């Protein structure tokens, strides 16, 4: 198989990382917290879609909408109960709570849906098209398209709407934003709701590409996507997209040309080098130290 083929398969893995990374980076950019439970919200979204589509035979489109609704509600509830009371607490306290939420979701899923892996019947046919000698699966194309659409929508939303403006203000300076009459709490809650809704789409696409669903499905892609988000510059939406794609490509090229045994080590090695050269990630805003 040629280099181009590895590149394409890397892009398809990367597009899944990218879509998860979008949710991570958005929540981080605005609420300034690492939402370690993001991967598990993805898992819940995938389960909801699985039950709606595979088990109860609902229309695939409705199944996805349903998954988004459930995840958005879940995101709001988690935020209200677990993160909101900690708004004034040190950021590490919130990080630990997020880890607690992650354990909680995984174990609830284990109790409700058992540990037996479910095979996610892809809502898109598992077939490929030939483009100039390259085989690209429909899922890859769809994931990249969805990713780009979401990226454009998010960027427009944040740059053009009033709520988006509020989000940017909160991200810059919470205190100043509050003084300007922005409801910081609501803004952050909305961010979570959007991030969780995105997680549902990510879950559906993740499990369409890699149709294997267990209560721990979300955790490893979650960590990889978090890495991708940092890689691209955490907080930057195009950065998450770029970081995700690059991470997937590097991972697959490392597997193809170096060694499958230490492909992880290579991916993380590249990440370290990038961060040493560009400490704020590829597209991150360099922070200037204030004296």
């Amino acid at each position, binding site marked *: 198989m040629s280099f181009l083929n590895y590149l394409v*398969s890397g892009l398809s893995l990367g597009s899944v990382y990218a879509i998860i990374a979008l949710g991570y980076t958005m929540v981080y950019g605005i609420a300034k917290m690492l939402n370690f439970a993001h991967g598990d919200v993805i898992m819940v979204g995938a389960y909801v879609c699985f039950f709606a589509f595979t088990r109860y035979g609902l229309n695939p489109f409705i199944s996805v909408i349903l998954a988004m609704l459930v995840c958005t509600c879940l995101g709001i509830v988690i935020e209200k109960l677990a993160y909101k009371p900690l708004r004034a607490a040190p950021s590490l306290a919130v990080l630990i709570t997020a880890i607690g939420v992650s354990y909680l979701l995984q174990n609830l899923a284990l109790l409700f849906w058992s540990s037996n892996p479910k095979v996610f019947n892809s809502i898109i046919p598992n077939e490929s098209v030939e483009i100039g000698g390259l085989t690209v699966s429909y899922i890859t194309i769809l994931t990249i398209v969805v990713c780009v659409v979401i990226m454009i929508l998010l960027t427009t939303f944040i740059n053009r709407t009033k709520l988006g403006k509020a989000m940017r203000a909160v991200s810059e300076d919470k205190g100043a934003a509050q003084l300007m009459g922005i409801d910081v709490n609501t803004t952050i809650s909305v961010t979570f709701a959007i991030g969780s809704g995105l997680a549902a789409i990510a879950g559906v696409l993740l499990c369409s590409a890699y149709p294997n669903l267990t209560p721990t499905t979300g955790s490893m892609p979650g960590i990889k996507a978090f890495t991708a988000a940092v890689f691209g510059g955490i907080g930057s939406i195009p950065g998450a997209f770029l970081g995700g794609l690059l991470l997937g490509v590097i991972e697959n090229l490392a597997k193809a040309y170096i060694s499958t045994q230490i492909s992880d080590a290579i991916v993380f090695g590249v990440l370290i080098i990038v961060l040493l050269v560009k400490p704020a990630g590829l597209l991150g805003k360099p922070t200037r130290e204030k004296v």
Partner: protein
Amino acid sequence: MNMKKFFAIFLAAMMIFSLAACSGGSTEPVAPADGDTPEGELPESTVQIHIGATGPLTGGAAIYGQAVKNGAEIAVEEVNAMGGIQFIFQMEDDTHDPEKAENAYNALVDWGMDMMMGTVTSAPAEVTAADAYADRYFFLTPSASSTNVIDGKDNIFQMCFTDPNQGSGSATYISENNMGEKIAIIWKNDDSYSTGIRNTFVEKAGELGLEIVAEQTFTEATKTDFSVQISKCQEAGADLVFLPMYYEPASLILNQANAAGYAPTWFGVDGMDGILTMEGFDTSLAEGVVVLTPYSADDESALNQNFVKKYQEKFGEIPNQFAADGYDCIYAMYKAATEAGIDPASMDHEAICDAMVAQFTSMTFDGLTGASMTWGSDGTVSKLPNAVVIENGAYVGM
């Protein structure tokens, strides 16, 4: 500052509570797994045996522990309904972690375990088997296949094949039946089960002159995307791909190979069993896969039909090899305990251990995972690996 102090006191209180719960509270009654035969109704002479087990009931490996637990619980119910020896079964969670497995083992010792139905997965089982050997508890593992679990320990027995047995068995089978000219292997290089089988397979394949053209690996962190591994095998022209792994990653490999239009002969080992019963799995993907497994849920024997029916009624799923191993373990222990006349009322666990060891090395046992099983003094089981091929979504003997 004082916040910290309050907090330290709070934590300390929590710790004391936990310690108390740990050391003092373990006398709490643990209900027998069979809720419907209360101990009070039994005649006083009834022999009661406490069987402890550990396995991953939560976390990423929970599928295997849960299956063993379910299978064992069905067997315990049946055994207790027969009215002879009564089993009280307790399975503790080890989350597939050697450290937690040691804790689980100690909790079982405190609970008053008389013998142990082992540990489900290999790495934690190495720890619990070493403990059981030192403390002299009889130990029969359903599915921990690493040789290191049993090596040099006279009281540790396996219900499953050992890894070398499977690795060299697969190589021999492939060679004898001329199943492939060029062989590729995909294995999980951070997992001892997968690595163990791969190592002995490669060794035996070398002896038999099989040509291995590609070796590809994956890890826990890269177990989703196999496109590179698959295309490497394809490029190398492999016509048979050996998959020493559990069915969860294997299902993904089959799926992605199908999307890539690659269709070699797939050859799996016992961990592959269960792939057909995954909810939503398109069994046509597994068409033609050869599996070296001791168990098949489609087996038509009355014993198996009864087991599958009960399992489905109780858990709503079709049992896999792990569940069958758990079921067999309980029955093998029941048979040995009955024939050896085990009675914890008059024997301590060391005496039970010696009697069970003597019985196990001399008895023959028929179970779901094999007929006429016998055990060697090294703890390995001798039973025939069945090569089955998947046709129309079901196993067919070869």
